């Protein structure tokens, strides 16, 4: 399935636009693609470049043993990028993910199994069309290694679970509708004020997506694990015949609990079916909001609050 498909214009995301080889002349393609590939590389350079090994070690500590994958050499990959643009890109496309005329190299077993030319070499020796019409068997060991590093870099791109390159622009909403929701159905003004606790909210986050995450998940388990500071969950515990004990929730399970009183003292209690445990979560309204928010509400709110600088 290969169709031209206009990239959505409002998003500053890494979206190499597909192109038709038939429509543009060869020289122009090469110039455009070379620029495109460089652009992509520039964008990617903003985030730490993963190596093949680090791609696999995405979750720290979940890979062990003598890992024999090829570590991408960025300098060699850069040389490989030039070679790719000169000899391969017209058929295999700017991201090496294939076109109507040639297969996806990111999924190629030759590329996956290759180590600095170990598989590409024998493959090219057999003869493979190149853009320059020269013999693929004449590619040197260094050229094959460079090409291998470039293609492994493309595999790394596919391994990433983060946005590639530029940050996503998630501001797509309607500020007026966001304001209406903030002041109306959202009931946000019950706790928040744009001149009080949300003063300058639109400038507080590195990225709009962080603001969006803070609206949705204010306990801070979102991006980067940082959320706005929030008041603690409070407990009121009453044992049968006893006085209520109040404090900040430290620990609670089916059999025990622990709270910290206003003087900072820890109290541990036994929890039985007759123990009355009341929890007051200052974010309860935020959690309840998740059941009511539409995606339009979310995008409108982000747009509106982004304007509060």
């Amino acid at each position, binding site marked *: 399935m290969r169709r031209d498909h206009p990239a959505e214009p409002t998003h500053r*995301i890494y979206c190499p636009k597909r192109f038709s080889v038939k429509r543009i002349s060869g020289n122009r393609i090469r110039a455009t693609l070379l620029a495109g590939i460089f652009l992509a590389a520039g964008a990617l350079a903003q985030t730490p470049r993963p190596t093949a090994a680090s791609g696999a070690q995405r979750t720290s500590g979940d890979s062990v043993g*003598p890992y*024999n994958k090829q570590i991408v050499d960025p300098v060699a990959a850069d040389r490989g990028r030039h070679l790719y643009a000169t000899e391969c890109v017209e058929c295999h496309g700017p991201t090496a993910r294939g076109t109507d005329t040639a*297969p*996806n190299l990111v999924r190629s077993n030759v590329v996956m199994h290759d180590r600095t030319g170990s598989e590409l070499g024998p493959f090219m020796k057999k003869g493979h069309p190149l853009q320059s019409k020269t013999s693929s068997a004449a590619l040197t060991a260094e050229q094959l290694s460079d090409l291998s590093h470039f293609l492994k870099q493309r595999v790394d791109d596919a391994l990433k679970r983060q946005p590639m390159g530029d940050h996503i622009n998630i501001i797509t909403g309607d500020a007026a509708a966001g304001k209406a929701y903030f002041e109306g159905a959202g009931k946000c003004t019950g706790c928040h004020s744009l001149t009080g606790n949300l003063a300058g909210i639109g400038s507080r986050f590195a990225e709009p*997506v962080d603001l969006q995450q803070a609206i949705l998940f204010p306990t801070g388990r*979102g991006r980067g694990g940082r959320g706005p500071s929030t008041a603690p969950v409070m407990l009121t515990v009453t044992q049968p015949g006893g006085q209520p004990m109040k404090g900040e929730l430290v620990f609670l*399970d*089916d059999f025990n609990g622990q709270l910290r009183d206003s003087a900072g003292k820890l109290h541990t209690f036994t929890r039985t079916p007759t123990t009355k445990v009341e929890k007051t979560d200052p974010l309860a309204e935020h959690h309840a909001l*998740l059941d009511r928010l539409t995606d339009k509400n979310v995008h409108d709110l982000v747009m509106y609050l982004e304007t509060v600088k």
Partner: protein
Amino acid sequence: MNRPRNAASALSLLLLLASAIYAQPPMPTDSWPTYNGDFSGRRFSPLAKINATNIKSLTLSWAWRLNASGGSSSNIRSTPLMMDGVIYLSTEDNAFAVDARTGREIWHYVWASSGGRHNGNKGMAMFGNFLYFETGDCHLVSLGKDDGKLRWSKTICDLDQFYFASVAPVVVGNHVIAGVSGDDTDVGGYLESHDPETGELQWRFYTVPQKKGDAGSETWPNEDMSSHGGGMTWVPITYDPDLKLIYVTTGNPQPVIAYANRKGDNLYTCSLVALNADTGKMAWAFQTSPHDTHDWDSTQTAVLFDGEISGQPRKLVAQAARNGKFFVLDRVTGKAIVSTEFVKTNWSLGFDAKGQPIPDPAKNPSLAGTLVSPNSGGSTNWFPPTFSPATGLFYVNASRNYGEFYLYDATDNPQGWAGNSQGSWSENMLEALDYKTGKVKWSHKWEGGASYGLLSTAGNLIFTGAPGGSIEALNATTGDPLWHARLPSGVSNSPVTWELDGTQYLLVGGGDTLYAFAMLAK
């Protein structure tokens, strides 16, 4: 007459009644020979020496700490096996035999790994004097049961394509059934059968069509997408020996979050598939998450039990899926009997005529973010549920949660994940579902996340890990918490039980330590 005896006789009566209605053979009580204790996936033990009345006397008999290189090798995710008084346990790249009466180590085998993802080995299979387990670097390994010596190893997947292996194999008849894992790049899933003696490959079933014209290929745009379409098999299969059918549950399609280049239902990803055990040929399939775009692997255990629907005895299979839906099917035909939700979700527009959910396209991931319940972790996950024929209830540790799903690659040819779910809010509970309706009979709310496997017993008990680091027992009928013991590293695997020399033991792994609790009072 004291009360425990009363309770015990009431329980035996309950069991007697249960066994009259349910024709399935009960799990053995003097061993734990497969990942789920038997082939059914019920994780229900007919043992009742430890029961809802006397459980407060349950006490620690021994604890054994494994000695491995750390990381996932030192974290017991797997379910141990037990036979003839010896426990067989695997962690990533390690296998152990431990005396079940004393907790003394008998042997320790270490596999020299060449890499791959190590995210938690789930256990071993046993056949006569042989053991089988998978390794992160794509091997199926067989050891001698008595000496822990390597017999053979077979490569079952390609590390270079970012596959890895972690599932517990299951031996059915003359077949070692082994699944594979991996969703870093776009590769196709499959299930393999190996000869238990020689390790030779007997058959391979691809969960996604390898070529145009293969079953399910009409639900993919082309052969390139379908053959790289995911559908990993990383949770142990269940098996009906009478029907000779294997029930395998399959993972998410690839690319995981982005979907522009895989229009269609993407069969047989996110599906429950019945296969002939001898040939690996598909008997039927039911897709629990058509065209998934949220990483909701449907790799939750397919639990086999016999029940009664509208007064008729039926052979059933049930699954509480990661996408929040609960299904009960006829396991002979694959026809749906119950299709419902076990937690509230916001991503579907009801069920189609086959009982499969209809995804709401408005809840697909988007560049600006889409608020979806559940998040990519799902409403439940790999950890095993349990079904008690004594209560007729299906139990699952469930989560109602939200995530914001972002698309990272808006081209028409995304690869890998190309998106993700970020942030989370959740409420978590142990649910007991009536299998005839899927209705929640009781729900016990947890004070935190509860990614724990379950065990039910004829003692009217449910055992589970609990937030806060405890192994906990609840009343299977009411959900009331009855007993707990806090472990230093919390619970990391699914509890199991057996009887040795007249004593019923409860075994649970917590980090690098296996704990054996026992009802020592007679």
